[in-house]
């Protein structure tokens, strides 16, 4: 029933847009080559993500990944000979207003065919209804919260954390953990969701007891008290859902409090964010949608290519950008149409089939990606697959 | 010792002083008389470095110190005992004295404090209580003591008897004389002309921003210039 309604809406929207495109094709000379459903010689993709500000790492990483993907696409002639992809980077600077404004500019620019949308949930959730209204296909990376993938034009290539967090609990169960504590940042949307609902549910299913659940705030900087509470209860494992600087402190203070059991964390620890914790982070296990330690063929190939181009290891954000760009390229090829509507159709089609990228095999639930991800263990500055 | 000539001072649009000339010397009390608003306080403040004069000169100890900032003037050996005493009320009596000795060599401070206590025994009794608890007269003593801590050669005093009961006025002014007798130069603005005259050596009368009369205390005590300056024409009519 819901599916039928949705199909009809898509169809109507499609019709409306083809009508618009038809008029554009007739009226404008410059837009001539974009009409009629072909692939343009130059495809313009806007990346509206943080290049500066507190989460600049996500946007900067994605840029690098996307650039690598473009290089490969062009070299392979994936979209036909001489087809160029132009990547326009627009900085959201960690601000919702900026995200909204830059998105609007990108949407207002008729040359922009698709958008790689903001990485912060708040920014993404703000612009999601707009892209639906303006009918611009947008692929989000990260942005793991609710309210992002809400219409036919919104896609997300990074799976939400709770979708691949199960394997953590599975891992703990395998290791024979009976009791766990949860330490989570309750003011960070993803973690509050996971800490309050996700993890308890997953644990219950596996017969693991949660003996402690300790919410903290974004402003919490000292974890001495919590660490001692945890050490006192001494659970078999600790699920630690904290933002990057908090994790570094908590790991140190947990060690100091004498807690030596297994600690599992989140993908926030990836991209070298845990490096500052030094030896305290040894043995830490966390799930990631991508890691250089992943042994899948496509992941390995990506890592290799990335190292060759940038002379450093790719982080998960680079994988995001890479897969997002390939997602769009595949969509163009699938529909054979680089117009906005063509890309949207293509994205929907590719999503239905799934594809293999840096993160391994991507499947989609609606427009929302799912990956198996990998469980990695941090040891002396390196990620290895957790056994 | 101090030579002030043709001082002009204004703050903002107000030309408060235009043509004040004064002088003071060691061991002598120079009394500045004049009605309220005549520009006495402004002159003292300009001499002590709290206001930059528009023109005129201030020479002290043979050096031109016109426009020198207040915190430097103190180091030269001239200190102002301000109108209304301006005691640091939340600080204790002894702390007030210590801050007075801010420019003095560290080693001499304890000794100076003892000297002040000797001069004003009432302060010694209250040394650890907040200065705000002192009576008006005691606060004036403290203001003197605080100024003495910097070992001044010259003290500028702005209405030391203001708001004090008559018996206290006597005590305050006699201690001024004592300080002068110890060799310190005093330039004092005082509204209580009679009491002031009793301890003064020389007198300058300032009226509406200018020096209008100078002479010895003896001459002043006799003349009607003083009464005129203070209370105006009408006060003389019946005399």
């Amino acid at each position: 029933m819901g599916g039928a309604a949705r199909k009809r809406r898509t169809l109507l929207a499609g019709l409306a847009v083809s009508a618009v495109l038809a008029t554009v094709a007739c009226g404008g000379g410059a837009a001539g080559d974009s009409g009629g459903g072909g692939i343009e010689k130059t495809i313009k993709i806007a990346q509206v993500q943080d290049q500066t500000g507190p989460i600049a790492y996500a946007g900067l990483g994605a840029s690098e990944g996307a650039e690598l993907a473009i290089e490969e696409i062009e070299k392979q002639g994936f979209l036909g000979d001489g087809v160029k992809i132009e990547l326009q980077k627009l900085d959201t600077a960690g601000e919702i207003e900026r995200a909204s404004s830059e998105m609007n500019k990108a949407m207002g620019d008729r040359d922009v065919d698709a958008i790689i949308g903001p990485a912060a949930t708040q920014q993404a959730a703000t612009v999601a209804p707009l892209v639906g209204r303006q009918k611009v296909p947008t692929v989000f990376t990260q942005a793991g919260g609710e309210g992002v993938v809400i219409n036919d034009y919104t896609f997300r290539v990074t799976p939400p954390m709770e979708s691949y967090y199960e394997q953590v609990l599975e891992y703990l169960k395998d290791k024979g953990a009976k009791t766990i504590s949860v330490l989570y940042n309750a003011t960070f949307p993803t973690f509050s969701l996971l800490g309050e609902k996700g993890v308890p549910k997953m644990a219950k299913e596996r017969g693991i007891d949660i003996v402690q659940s300790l919410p903290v705030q974004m402003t919490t900087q000292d974890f001495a008290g919590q660490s001692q509470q945890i050490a006192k209860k001494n659970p078999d494992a600790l699920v630690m859902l904290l933002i990057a600087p908090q994790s570094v402190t908590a790991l140190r203070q947990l060690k100091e409090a004498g807690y030596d059991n297994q600690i599992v964390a989140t993908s926030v620890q990836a991209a070298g964010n845990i490096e500052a914790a030094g030896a305290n982070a040894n043995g830490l296990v966390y799930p990631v949608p991508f890691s250089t330690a992943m042994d899948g063929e496509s992941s390995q190939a990506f890592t290799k290519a990335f190292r060759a181009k940038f002379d450093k290891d790719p982080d998960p954000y680079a994988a995001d950008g890479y897969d997002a760009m390939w997602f769009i390229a595949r969509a163009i090829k699938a529909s054979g149409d680089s117009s906005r509507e063509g890309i949207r159709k293509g994205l929907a089609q590719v999503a239905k089939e799934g594809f293999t990228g840096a993160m391994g095999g991507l499947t989609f639930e609606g427009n929302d990606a799912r990956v198996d991800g990998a469980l990695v263990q941090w040891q002396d500055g390196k990620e290895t697959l957790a056994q | 010792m101090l030579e002030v000539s043709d001082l002009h001072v204004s703050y903002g649009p107000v030309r408060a002083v235009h043509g004040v000339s004064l002088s003071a010397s060691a061991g002598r009390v120079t009394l500045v008389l004049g009605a309220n608003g005549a520009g006495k306080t402004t002159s003292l403040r300009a001499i002590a470095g709290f206001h930059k004069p528009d023109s005129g000169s201030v020479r002290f100890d043979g050096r031109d110190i016109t426009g020198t900032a207040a915190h430097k003037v103190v180091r030269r050996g001239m200190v102002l005992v301000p109108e209304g005493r301006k005691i640091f009320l939340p600080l204790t009596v002894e702390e007030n004295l210590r801050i007075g000795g801010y420019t003095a060599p560290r080693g001499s401070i304890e000794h100076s404090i003892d000297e002040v206590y000797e001069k004003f025994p009432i302060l010694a009794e209250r040394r650890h209580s907040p200065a705000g608890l002192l009576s008006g007269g005691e606060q004036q003593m403290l203001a003197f003591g605080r100024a003495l801590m910097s070992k001044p050669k010259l003290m500028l005093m702005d209405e030391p008897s203001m708001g004090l009961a008559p018996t206290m006025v006597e005590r305050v002014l006699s201690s001024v004389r004592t300080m002068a007798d110890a060799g310190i130069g005093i330039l004092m603005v005082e509204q209580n002309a009679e009491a002031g005259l009793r301890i003064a050596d020389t007198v300058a009368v300032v009226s509406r921003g200018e020096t209008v009369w100078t002479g010895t205390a003896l001459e002043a005590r006799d003349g009607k210039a003083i009464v005129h300056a203070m209370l105006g024409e009408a006060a003389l009519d019946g005399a």
Partner: protein
Amino acid sequence: MADTAVRTTTALLAVEDVAVHFGGVKAVDGISLEMHQGNIYGVLGPNGSGKSTLLGAMTRLTPLTRGRFLLDGVDYTKVPARKVHRMGISRTFQTVRLLDDRSVRDNILLGQDTLPKQTRKAAAMQVDEVMERVGVREVAQLRPDELSYGMQRRVEFARAIIGRPRLLLLDEPTAGMNTAERKEIGKLMRQLCDEGITQFIVEHDVEMMVDTCDYLFAMNVGKLIAEGDPHDVVRHPAVQEAYLGKGAASGA
């Protein structure tokens, strides 16, 4: 002064045993006096004698320790300061207190802003006339900080009279003015008095007080030490003693 004649009517302002103590300091210590319609009153006294405090207390800005004030026989000791203005008492301040960002004209209009509607309308219409009278009409659009101190004082004066108060309290109205300006202000005060505005002046310039006032009070250390005809008051031994000390009074 026709003393007996004045006493037969109710005083415009009666001060009954008023005291203002700040902590241990008795700034005003038991003052009683009366002022009657249509006169200019002045109060003399050396610095710190409590004159300005008394004036502050009359407007209720300074809280009383004891005593009471009666305006036309009505006790307003408990009335909040902001309502005193509406009762017909207005004042100027010892230091100029004007709005720096507002024009002279605006500053003057402030004096009638909270009056009853009728009075306000009438007052607003007279603003040009008032500016003319105090001599600031030509600079109506300037801001106070562009004016000389004397001019600023005139603006204060104008603000105080625009609402046509019954009692005008003036705290050093001529400080910072030159002789000619003082004369002008004195003349204006007399005119206003003839128009029925009773005035109470705190002023240091004794000469001006004697010239301008109908009746003088003298204060020292918070107490009233003399009152009466201005010429008598300045010659009063207690007054001369307060100003000059004991010897001078007898010697003069």
